[in-house]
């Protein structure tokens, strides 16, 4: 792979869930002369992304934006409905078909309690992968796992313990060790620090940065916590209801956000302040993914919305800051302050 090939690319990636009406509902509807509708959820809607080798890309969004679904598709544990993904230039079908290649993409999960098998000892949790796939021999397992545990800040005494005997932060370290044990090149962190205490978050965030510095692996860091994203990521992607609304370098995103949603997010983000803050009474609930607003999904909550925003489907376009956003009125609203009223 040469310097130019990104380690990961996605083109027009889409994932739809269809909730078919159950047998009785369909029968009842037929009796009344109607057809019961299937509900279609476009959890991920035509997303295109690029991740360069060694880069850390942050994905930010609130509930219903599809970031978890996207994470699982990239990790190869969920199928895409349409679109394609490439890992190091190779199509995902080929990558996932070859176990050795597929192992290079690993994922860290949000809930440290349920992401570890409560019946397995730490030795097995971390060591099963490398041994089963032939990376190491069974006789080397103990030594190998101890080595990995040391890099995440745990010790040999932890090998024979069960997950319930550890704290949240330690469990997350075990999850990280499990991913590292199979020598990944792309690490997807799905809200990996969200469930942890503040002081533990700092420890785990540091651990990620240390690992990145030592191995040069590429990371996809998904979070709703903007302050952590700002600290760790090189580039940020903002998602809303299945679509990418903005892409920019971290510095640019925080200093000059383009999309009205990004601006609202940054405005609403809790910041340390010495006194009470005057909040903006921003209206509107996040719409349900089952029934997203037409046109630009954000228009019901956007102070800049016009009729055009309801009629046209926005497209992601590069902008003058060096990033991209999909606001239909970007050129008109850039520089306009957010309302207080």
């Amino acid at each position, binding site marked *: 792979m040469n310097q130019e090939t990104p380690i990961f690319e996605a083109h027009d990636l889409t994932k739809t869930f269809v909730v078919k009406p159950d047998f009785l509902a369909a029968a009842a509807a037929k009796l009344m002369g109607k057809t019961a509708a299937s509900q279609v959820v476009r959890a991920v809607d035509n997303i295109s992304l690029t991740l360069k080798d060694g880069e850390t890309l942050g994905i930010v969004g609130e509930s219903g934006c599809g970031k978890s679904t996207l994470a699982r598709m990239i990790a190869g544990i969920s199928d895409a409905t349409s679109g394609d993904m490439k890992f190091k230039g190779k199509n995902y079908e080929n990558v996932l078909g070859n176990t050795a290649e*597929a192992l290079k993409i*690993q*994922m860290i999960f949000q*809930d440290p309690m349920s992401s570890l*098998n409560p019946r397995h000892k730490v030795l097995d949790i971390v060591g*099963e992968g490398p041994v089963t796939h032939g990376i190491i021999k069974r006789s080397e397992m103990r030594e190998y796992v101890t080595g990995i545990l040391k890099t995440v800040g745990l010790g040999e005494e932890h090998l024979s313990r069960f997950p319930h005997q550890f704290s949240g932060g330690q469990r997350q370290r075990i999850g990280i060790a499990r991913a590292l044990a199979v020598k990944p090149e792309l690490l997807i962190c799905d809200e990996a620090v969200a469930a942890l205490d503040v002081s533990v978050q700092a420890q785990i965030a540091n651990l990620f940065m240390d690992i990145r510095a030592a191995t040069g692996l590429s990371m996809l860091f998904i979070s709703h916590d903007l302050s952590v994203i700002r600290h760790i990521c090189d580039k940020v992607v903002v998602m809303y209801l299945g679509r990418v609304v903005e892409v920019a370098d971290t510095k640019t995103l925080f200093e000059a956000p383009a999309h009205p949603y990004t601006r609202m997010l940054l405005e609403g983000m809790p910041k340390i302040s010495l006194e009470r803050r005057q909040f903006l009474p921003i209206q509107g609930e996040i719409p349900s993914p089952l029934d997203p607003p037409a046109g630009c999904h954000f228009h019901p909550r956007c102070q800049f919305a016009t009729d055009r925003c309801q009629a046209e489907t926005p497209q992601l376009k590069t902008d003058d800051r060096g990033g991209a956003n999909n606001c239909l009125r970007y050129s008109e609203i850039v520089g306009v302050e957010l309302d207080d009223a």
Partner: protein
Amino acid sequence: MSNRTPKEFLKQFGENRIAIVCLAITVGFIICAIFAPLIAPSNPYDLERLQLTDSLLPVGSKQIAPSQELRLDVNVIEGVGDADGFVTTPCGDGCLEFGPTDVNVDIGSMEIRDLPDGVTVDGAKKHPIRNWWTVIAPENGTVSIVSDTPLPRSFAFKAITETTGLETGFTFYLGSDGFGRDMLSAIIYGIRISILVGIAAAGTAMVIGTLLGLIAAWFGGAVDSIIMRSVDFMLGFPSLLVGLVVLAVLGSGIDKIIFAVIAVQWAYYARTTRSVALVELNKEYVEAARCQRFSSTRIMLRHVLPNCLPPLIVLLTLNVASAISLEASLSFLGMGLPLTEPSLGMLIANGYEFIFSSKYWVSLYPGLVLLIMIIAMNLLGDRLRDMNNPRLNN
């Protein structure tokens, strides 16, 4: 059970005294079952040993050796006659005593036949038609042959004696049943059959049911529907009915009974496993396992199955008790096992007719043993279920 190390688990289990007692009882029964030939005083299956004279002996009675019959031809010549071990002794003019040389021999009854006319036996009962005289339990084993007229100097007669049985050293600690079997031995062997059927049947049902439940959970869709509708179908029938039908079709025998129990019980495991597996499959550690690119088989058996085990083990314990109960019911109804190899159920059935004629021990003791066995296993299963319930733990 899922959040404890084996040590923690045992410690918590031991906090409830009743559970420990039940565990001890169950283990005791299992040892009984394994070492039955060594523990039981006699082998109840050995038909040679059975004697009808031993039947329906009460608790604690000793076994009596079978009585022996001797047929003797006695010739009295010139007032003196003898035969094997027996001798005549004159006792007066018209009287001749006939008895064993060894006075200690216990004669149960003596029958004298073919006496000359006019000659009778003192204190004997005469056969209604023939000239046969019987004395029961003659004193000192000696009967007196008497006549109004002086006895002939020489005559011959036949003597049939029966010695009463002597007590052997063998005691029927719990009495004997209608066939002369020692109840204690029969019960011990009956325990063996019950435990064997219980564990083998419930265990096999668990393996089959669990596998089917896992398959239903993993594949979903049509496979799931087929398996689960079969489960619903099986659970719709009362288990005794299914057992009877299976045995009627397949015939009798211990392996057929095991098969009948499996046919009833697999459905419980399948249903439980499927629901637990469905919940587990949604957990993140399964996603993590898929991320580690393990095969479906490995994930189901090594990752999901261990987390399904706690409720399954509770179910197993309760089902062993239920299997034993089912087998006892089927045996009680006369299906399944041959008469010569009784299980507890059959023993109860055999003794049923004697309950009201004060020979209670034939049904009572097998019944009590069955009761204790089932209660112990049920309480054990209850304890395991309580331990498994997160809300009851601090």
